[in-house]
């Protein structure tokens, strides 16, 4: 009796806390996977942009070397979304080479705060997440198709 009461309370708590995603169907599954795919695609785009700018010494807008960008991701009732794209405030790499036109009065010039191995790792991880979302989407589609076929 006591255990069943605890179990009931636990189920109720789970129900309350996971309320935004209860009462779901395959439509919602497709929507969640679609948002996941889009977010991972956006991440890949940002990573590609970071890698492409790995040796950009000056950005017109700021006058500084290129700053690493990263997406801020948050979960929503519709799945997931990119809240904003932020710039990294990590310090720039510094090199001593006086003949370089971008070097300062002391002969140092600054490189973007991008770590190429980190970016490659992020890219591999993002690719895996992208594929996981694609697999989930394909499974949802297969379930949908099975339901449609059952009605034939």
């Amino acid at each position, binding site marked *: 009796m006591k255990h069943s009461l605890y179990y009931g309370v*636990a*189920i109720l708590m*789970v129900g309350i*806390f*996971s309320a935004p*995603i*209860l*009462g*779901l*169907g*395959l439509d*919602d*599954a*497709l929507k*969640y*996977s679609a*948002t*996941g795919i889009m*977010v*991972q695609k956006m*991440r890949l785009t940002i990573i590609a942009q970071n890698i492409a700018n790995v040796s950009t010494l000056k950005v017109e807008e700021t006058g500084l070397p290129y700053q690493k960008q990263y997406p801020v*991701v*948050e*979960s929503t009732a519709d*799945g*997931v979304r990119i809240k904003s794209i932020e710039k990294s405030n990590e310090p720039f790499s510094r090199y001593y080479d006086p003949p370089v036109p971008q070097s300062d009065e002391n002969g140092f010039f600054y490189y973007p705060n991008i770590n190429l191995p980190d970016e490659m790792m992020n890219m591999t*991880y*993002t690719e*895996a*997440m992208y594929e*996981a*979302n694609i*697999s*989930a*989407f394909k*499974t*949802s589609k*297969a*379930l949908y198709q*099975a*339901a449609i*076929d*059952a*009605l034939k």
Partner: protein
Amino acid sequence: MIKYALGMAILVSSMAMSAMGQTARPIDKMFYSEPYSVVERGIFEASRRHAIYSYIISNMSTPGFDAMRYLPPDDQAELQSIIPSKQYTRDILLEFVVTKMSDNNRRDTALMTMWKNKKDSLQRIVTMGK
């Protein structure tokens, strides 16, 4: 006289209702039998679980996302039995959710096949085998 007519009307209507009930009951049993509704509930549950797994996969890279909050209680218990410490659950979460999704997919397919068989039988009855 009015009382007699009213009494007769009630008697006739109750007889008609009881006769309708007797004929309607087997049809109800045929279309809305308990195993049929169990299979339907199973399909709804499989769809719900699939949506939950999709939600967790889409939020796998979201910082601070607590997947345990959304997992069904039996999955939570299973995950905790594999890795008791909550600190490391995130390391195997993707694999766990993907395997659960695959398992759920198989269950849904089986239930859907059962539902289709039942529907085909009913269709044969309704169309008298045509």
